[in-house]
């Protein structure tokens, strides 16, 4: 599992740091980010790349666990 801390970074840095992990097809990514715009962008790009998004914490900071979904067929 890879961990990524992108709290407090301006757009689009959080997603720019996440994208290489997604491109490497990392199975599980735990990501700490500031809630708001960057967390929405993270969830959107993860879902677009076939990751399941589990919300672990949703307070001042957001913590997400991204799991690569099995591609059927």
């Amino acid at each position, binding site marked *: 599992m890879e961990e990524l801390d992108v*709290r*407090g*970074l*301006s*757009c*689009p*840095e959080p*997603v*720019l740091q996440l*994208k290489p992990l997604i491109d490497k097809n990392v199975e599980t990514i735990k990501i700490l980010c*500031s*809630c*708001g*715009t960057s967390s*929405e*962008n993270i969830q*959107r*790009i993860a879902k*677009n790349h076939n990751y399941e998004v589990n919300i672990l914490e949703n307070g*001042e900071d957001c913590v997400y666990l991204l799991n690569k979904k099995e591609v059927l067929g």
Partner: protein
Amino acid sequence: MKLAFLPIIAGVIFGVTAPILVYFGNPGNMGMCAACFTRDIAGAISLHQIGTLQYIRPEIIGLIFGALIASFIFGEFRARSGSAPIVRFMLGAFAMIGALVFLGCPWRMWLRLSGGDLSAIAGIFGFLAGVIIGLVFLKRGFSLGRNRPTSKIVGLAFPIFAFILFALLMWGVFDNNTLIKESTKGPASQHAPLIISLIAGLVLGGIFQRSRFCTIAAFRDSILFKDTHMLQGIIALIIVAAITNMALGSFHLGFINQPIAHNDTIWNFLGMLLSSLAFTLAGGCPGRQLVLAGEGDGDAGVFVFGLLFGAAFAHNFAIASSPAGITANAPITVILGIIFCLIVAIFAKERRV
């Protein structure tokens, strides 16, 4: 492709509202311009002395308070600051200078186009070039560093400033013996009735906060991640604003004699390039920065103070354009601004502890 519900709604509401504000009195193709209106506020509080550009635009106050209220309602007010404030201030100043050479922020660029002003096209290419240059550096690891959560009062400092502006505006309404200035002729004297402007600002601030509406993100994310989420909002804005302009009879196709615009292709291009490069490095367009400042981002607040400073600088030193064209001082300032942005872009990296 999934339809981006909130950005499209934001684009549609903005596309209808902006031409209606022009119909009610705002200057042509300037229903809502984050740069021009901030410039007018700079004049109203005597940061510059151009008699025709002085009015505390209620749209800007409404925008900040709309964002503040929406962020409180939806539990998204987050006081934060501490990410390279001085650089953000200077990026704000140069972004404003670029915008005033072009004559409009990215919002007004699209509104100009939707009113038939083809001189905006050079600006659009400059805008795209600025975003792309910014992206090259973002991909290389450019970062202004992290902000941190802070006390609520720090996050509220900028909304308090907006409230002071509102109090000054009200003072002028009820008492002629006011500190602030208000143009009696020229662009700043053209304005929709105060209450309409304020409500329009509040509504837009709320919907922009919810939708994260950002003209920079629209293109940045489309190019970087093939994510058209925000771009759909901009397309909705352009189409709806054009239709509304046609319905209101304010659509005039052409390159010349457009309201508060000039047709100097090179400097429309380079002015907007400087502006959008600065916005890209700062993480969002001026409207987005106003909304972020409203929802507790102190660094975005500093950026907006940079915009005010840039507006004052642009008019105190005859850098800002007019419908007659650019000034003699504009080229050197725009070039200096681009150099500043490039230096920041090259050297600013996050220090990893």
